[in-house]
């Protein structure tokens, strides 16, 4: 049942997300990758997936975004167009480990 639900969720989300949308995965309260390159000057959808059993909050002051990612879920964060540069982000609930940076090139 759980697998079925998971498969359903994944397929539903897959229909919403493009394969080339940049993705972040939260695992053990860390972001993977911790350094994510994205194109500058265009709008894009960052997919954030939480593989931990607890909720996390994707937050970035530079990007002006704050969004809860429930456990086992994948949510879109709409970003851009960004100027070239580095935009740090963090997981608000695990700030000592969950850290990363988006690099717009």
């Amino acid at each position, binding site marked *: 049942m759980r697998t079925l639900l998971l498969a359903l*969720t994944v397929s539903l*989300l897959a229909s*919403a997300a493009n394969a080339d949308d940049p993705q972040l995965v939260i695992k053990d309260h860390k972001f993977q990758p911790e350094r994510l390159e994205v194109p500058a000057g265009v*709008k894009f959808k960052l997919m954030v997936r939480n593989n931990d*059993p*607890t*909720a996390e*909050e994707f937050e970035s*002051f*530079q990007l*002006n*975004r704050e*969004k*809860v*990612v*429930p*456990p*086992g*879920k994948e*949510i*879109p964060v*709409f970003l*851009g*167009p*960004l100027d070239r540069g580095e935009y740090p982000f963090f997981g*608000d*609930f695990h*700030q*000592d480990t969950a850290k990363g940076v988006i690099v717009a090139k």
Partner: protein
Amino acid sequence: MLLANGSQLAIKETFEPSVRAMLASLLIVFREMLEAGLVVGIVLAATEGLAGRGLAILGGIAAGVSGAAVVAGFADVIAEAAEGVGQELFTAGILLAAVLMLTFHTTWMSRHGRKLASEIKEIGRAAVKGDKSLFALAVVVGLAVMREGSEVVLFLYGIAASSHESAGAMFAGGLIGVVLAALVSYTLYRGLVAIPMRHLFSVTNGMIALLAAGMAGQAAAVLAGADVIPSWGERLWNTSFILPDGSWLGRALHALIGYSAAPSGVQVAAWLATLALIVALARLAPDEKPKRGPAHPLAETKVAARS
């Protein structure tokens, strides 16, 4: 951010792991509840002298806490609603409902404020009726607590669920964080009611107008962030080198007046439009004259709403 990071660094080097965990959780919870704490402080001052306001505000807080638990419980449903932007729609809805209530309050006060201030002077505090306005502000308190509190609930639930070794210490830290936020409410309230009664409501009315403008701007920013409405320019300016969003002052000003270091066009537009609307409504509202007493010292009641 500088301050927050600085204090975290100090925490890491100085203390035992359990104390570190406690302080980290204290900081997270305090930061989340600070905004609600400031709202409660302003509302307490704005309802000074109204009969039954203690009960109304406590009721608002209690409803907010229950609401926070429910929202946290449905976090995954909300997150996946509306093709992944359910959270933004929900947050914006809560913010705009609060803006509506705050606008009602300032309009009501610009009508009754002068009379209220003179009545409170005459017949004493906690004796004057202002039920409608009180209800509106209790709702605002409830919404603020619910919005900020749901994240605290998720955070604390995460600690409980992960059977963290310092879970007890982290819960204690969270509790202290809530108490500190309540202390901020109380301090702000005491500071505001030190203002003489004839000026108090002009000050709180001005603060509430800015609070509403800030919330409207935030709602617009959230909706633009979800690509629901156009952003009219991602960042109009950037003052993060002077006052970053993550600093304590930046956070406090964010809650009080909607400060944002790099606001989007639609955010600034919503801020300005809301403030203009509130000032216009306050000026259009027919003024209820105080029954007795000198009109002169009370004549300034509407000043803050005008400026």
